[in-house]
């Protein structure tokens, strides 16, 4: 399948620390891919490089045949990559509706002059934006909560609103940073189903960082494992569960011999 995103030898240093070390990654279009790894493995740094918040020190990132290196975060978002955050980062003092309208920003075209003149084109654009926002609210089952301040929403709703905001610009690649962090088992399984719906119904490629092995193994078609910034394994969930280096990275040296617990828990 045609890759939507490809990184080649992507490298990022922080002083003497190599946070991301020559990572090659190919994400096929319309897939659900995961990046996993122990804490501090460089997963979020990897995300920040792709979204333009960090400039990689070496390597290449190609999204739909265009290089992302040197682009600003807003340019990358406009190209079709949006993200959510590990610790939810909504515009807390804006309503749910406004959050989604802000998410639509790169799709809307009205200039400041048009906004002041309030010309028919701008009017129409705003009207469609509101209709679209209401549709997205319903899509993430937040219909009727559009007028609530984002910070007054319950935790699970905030997670979904953040995803709706990221969807509002109609991205082709969605990066989810630990979308089930802090959720109980029921919420987690709902989120898993929801993520799959995003891909199936909207045709969006999804790249997620996740700690919860059940989520990762349950929905990913491709899993990449980072440890100390280095890619140590890649493959289908089944392959990863049997990979000795992965088990070592998670459970420590020597754990792979004889102990198959991690694979069992992951499969459970």
């Amino acid at each position: 399948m045609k890759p939507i995103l490809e990184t080649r030898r992507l490298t990022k240093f922080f002083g003497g620390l190599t946070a991301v070390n020559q990572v090659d990654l190919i994400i096929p279009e319309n897939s659900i891919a995961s990046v996993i790894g122990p804490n501090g493995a460089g997963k979020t740094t990897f995300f920040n490089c792709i979204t333009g918040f960090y400039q990689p020190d070496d390597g290449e990132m190609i999204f739909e045949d265009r290089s992302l290196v040197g682009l600003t975060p807003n340019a990358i978002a406009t190209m079709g990559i949006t993200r959510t955050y590990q610790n939810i980062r909504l515009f807390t003092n804006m309503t749910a509706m406004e959050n989604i309208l802000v998410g639509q920003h790169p799709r809307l075209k009205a200039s400041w002059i048009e906004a002041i003149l309030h010309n028919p084109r701008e009017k129409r654009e705003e009207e469609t934006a509101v209709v679209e926002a209401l549709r997205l609210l319903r899509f993430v089952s937040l219909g009727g909560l559009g007028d609530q301040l984002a910070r007054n929403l319950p935790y699970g709703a905030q997670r979904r609103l953040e995803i709706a905001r990221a969807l509002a610009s109609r991205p082709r690649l969605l990066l989810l940073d630990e979308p089930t962090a802090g959720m109980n088992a029921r919420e987690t399984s709902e989120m898993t189903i929801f993520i799959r719906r995003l891909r199936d119904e909207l045709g969006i490629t999804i790249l997620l960082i996740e700690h919860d092995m059940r989520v990762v193994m349950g929905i990913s078609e491709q899993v990449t494992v980072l440890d100390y910034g280095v890619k140590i394994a890649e493959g289908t969930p089944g392959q990863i569960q049997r990979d000795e280096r992965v088990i070592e990275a998670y459970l420590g040296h020597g754990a792979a011999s004889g102990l198959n617990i991690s694979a069992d828990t992951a499969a459970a």
Partner: protein
Amino acid sequence: MKVGLQNNLRLGIVFGIVMIFLMLIGFNLIAANLIGSFFNTGDADVLNMLLFIGLVGLWLGATAAKQDNLWLSAAINGAIAGAVCGLGLAGMVLLLGSLFEAGVTLSTYLAQLVPSTMKAILFGAAAWQAALVNWVIFALAGALGGILSYLLRLEGWRKRLSSIWVRQRASTSQQPIIQAIRSYPRSRMIIYGLGLVVLFILPLGLSQYRNYIIILTGIYVLLGLGLNIVVGLAGLLDLGYVAFFAIGAYTAALLTAPQPHHLQWSFWVALPIAVVLASLAGVALGVPVLRMRGDYLAIVTLGFGEIIRILLKSDLLTSFTRGPQGVNTIGGPDFHGLSSGVGFVYLIFLSILLIILVTTRLQNSRIGRAWVAMREDETVARAMGIDVVKHKLLAFAIGAAFAGLAGALFASQNRSIGPEDFALMVSINVVALIIVGGMGSIPGVIAGAFVLKGLPEILRQLQDYRILTFGALLVVMMLIRPEGLIPSRRRRLEIHEDEPELTEGTTAVEGGKA
């Protein structure tokens, strides 16, 4: 209950401190004089002093008993708050009184406490008597205030009143004429039109002095609306806003005045140039401070404001701007028969209306949302595809353009301007009026400008105390109404998030959209 008690103690202490402060600067006497002239009871006698204290006590009691649903607890709460406040005040009266009786010349330390004032504070009696009277009156007035506030909130008469109101509204809305007006699509337009007519008749009936106050306030409204975009929407704390006001004013002045450049262009040509130059200056300031946030931005912009003022004063530009002398005989628009005072009021009204229109439209557009998002979380705003550089510069440019307009109007209205018209205090005033009015709210800015600029002009009697009132008002505002006089909906929600308005708003909007 415990929370209520704590709240009352806190209120009492705040009021007590304010009262002590007011007494130390002799404000009691001025207030008593004002009350005296209001009730025609003559100057500063004991009765007026007592009346003043009593009124403050009533206010305190009413505030303290705001949430009580029993008259007894309302009275007790009011009395507690009053007693706490009175105790502080009584202590101070006792202290000052004993010192005064011991023959200490208090006016050496506190200029206002001359013997006659001291006598008034002590009600012409002994220190301990005056202290006791103060304390008793505060406690009694507090209790009375509590009961009054309870009575005013009584369900019964409120219901009766609101039912009358509803019935009246229902009956009027059933009348065919009212219905015809409602169903007529342009009725809103007509109502706005009537408002405009009132605005345009109003200045004709006012004295020249009143019109001058309107112009002055209007200029601050313009400044406030401009800074409101920069601070209130985009969240960029700009303390050098006066710089753009100065640039607008000097541009208009230099282009229309005979000295120093012999240009004497028409005001209508100078006005757009002033606006454009000011907004270019906004961009020029914006570029170097793009990466700064919060306090750092405030300090840098503050410096920028001062640089402009000092440049205008400096020898370097004397041949260009006439230095500290300033520019005189600045040209103004020709109003064709209208007196220039009335003409300027119209011009100000027109400018304000135009700017309100521009601001509301920007606020409710993609641009306005991008500003608010930037204020909320710049990093995320960028990740959502918002070009932060462009939108910050746009906010600076538009805010500065409004200031430039205000500056040009100010220069041609005043006929002469100098560097000292553009001191730091102007920036601070504008920031203060936005805060007092309600950040991000257009009606709030207008209310704030009236309170901070219009009222002190009207209350000439308090002239010496203007700055003091200003400071005290800011402090009190921040304590009792942190969201501002007329807050924007967002800000009200931010500060009072658990109040019922929220759900009401939700249902209303849901109903509207369904």
